[in-house]
């Protein structure tokens, strides 16, 4: 799980919605991925630590990819959880 840089918007209820994020690929080159669709979101509080999990869909290199992002409420950090 890697921390990532994120552009997100927040709903009136205070929920963040991920839009676009940036991470370094194997050659340390930054790539930007646009979140095309959020399939579902789910809040968890494992060990008392609240996180919001998003399963998303994007087109990366002309293929549709499914991945999971996590937002940690206590630290305001975004993570790429699974890809």
């Amino acid at each position, binding site marked *: 799980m890697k921390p990532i840089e994120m552009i997100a918007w927040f709903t009136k209820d205070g929920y963040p919605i991920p839009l676009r994020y940036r991470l370094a690929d194997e050659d340390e080159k930054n790539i930007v991925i646009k979140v095309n669709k959020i399939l579902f979101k789910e809040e*968890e509080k*494992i*060990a*008392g*630590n609240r996180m919001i999990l998003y399963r998303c869909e994007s087109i990366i290199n002309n293929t549709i990819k499914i991945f999971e992002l996590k937002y940690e409420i206590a630290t305001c950090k975004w993570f790429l959880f699974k890809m």
Partner: protein
Amino acid sequence: MDNRIIFHIDVNSAYLSWEAVYRLQHGAKIDLREIPSIVGGDSKKRHGIVLARSIPAKKYNISTGETVYSALQKCPHLIVVPPNFERYLNASNALIDLLREYSSKIQRYSIDEAFLDYTDGDKPWREAAYEIKDRVKNELGFTVNIGIGPNKLLAKMASDFKKPDMIHTLFKDEIKDKMWPLPVEELFMVGPKTKAKLNKRGIFTIGDLANLDRNYIYSWLKKPGLLIWEYANGIDNSKVRSEPLPVKSVGNSTTTSFDVDNRREAHMILLALSEKVSMRIRAIKRTAYVVSVGVKNSNFFSYSKQMKLDVPTDSTNTIYETAKKLFDEMWQGEPLRQLSVSLSDLLDNNFYQLSFFERDDRKEKLFDKAIDKIRDKFGQESVFRSCFLHSGINPLIGGVILEEEYPMMSSKI
């Protein structure tokens, strides 16, 4: 009293499970609970003891409280992870929040144990217990044992039966079959010393103890004997206390990362400890009559000395000066590895008696108050005494989390 339904909720290998699930939540591939692993202090700083172990680590005969060094000898591929108390407190708080949905009568017994009075619960108690256990597992990610009984003692004994992720009952009619065959040291409040005493007179199981004559045990072991005899017979009328017990003493200790062999350094450590305990006692609005200082030398021999003041105090300076005096009176000059300062015989500030003969310390009180406020607002180390500059010694030593927020185990249930 015996018609109550008390739950005792006990987190299975708490620190380790919490660490494990936190790591899984952050994408770890390995579950610490499934491999030989421990949560342990840093050996280099000499805080190297095992705080919690996984069930696979238990198979290597590693026990809580032994040194990390000896644990690694028993199992060289053991995974050692450092503790993170803030994380554990979060997990513990989440557990208590969940329990509050079931009853308002909850006693937080320690960071990983709680009593819950379900006598007036809405659901059948067995159903409620299973629901709690499964919700904790699904929502919070770790497992608990729940012991159910007519009082706190029996509930606590029951939660200890078989682990993990289990529910056990121990009602009066089950005592004979479930509790009496157990070795006597498994009984709450029977430690190694009492065990030795009991064993010497042929008492090996809880049943042996329970079947002694009440007068016999009283004439032999007096009041504490009577207490364990009552426990062995499943008698305990204590309530589930939602309010914490009043604080009886406040103390801080530190194991230094190097041996302290000169007076100057020892005094600085005493000052750092005094700073912390005095801040804590002021925070709970008490003053103390008794100051005590304890040390442990490099041969692991401990001794202490205490002194009763004429006028109770909460002043950093008075506490430090007294601690220094006590220390100088008892220290033999040998290298020390641990020092502690504690305050007891506490008095509510409202009853503070003014004295003719004591020096006027109003200015000092204001000063202490100002320092506390600054530290509260800008952090613990925002202001400290200049003698600590470049000394390598922390200007404030002792507990990172306040006791109220972080209840420790007590001998009283």
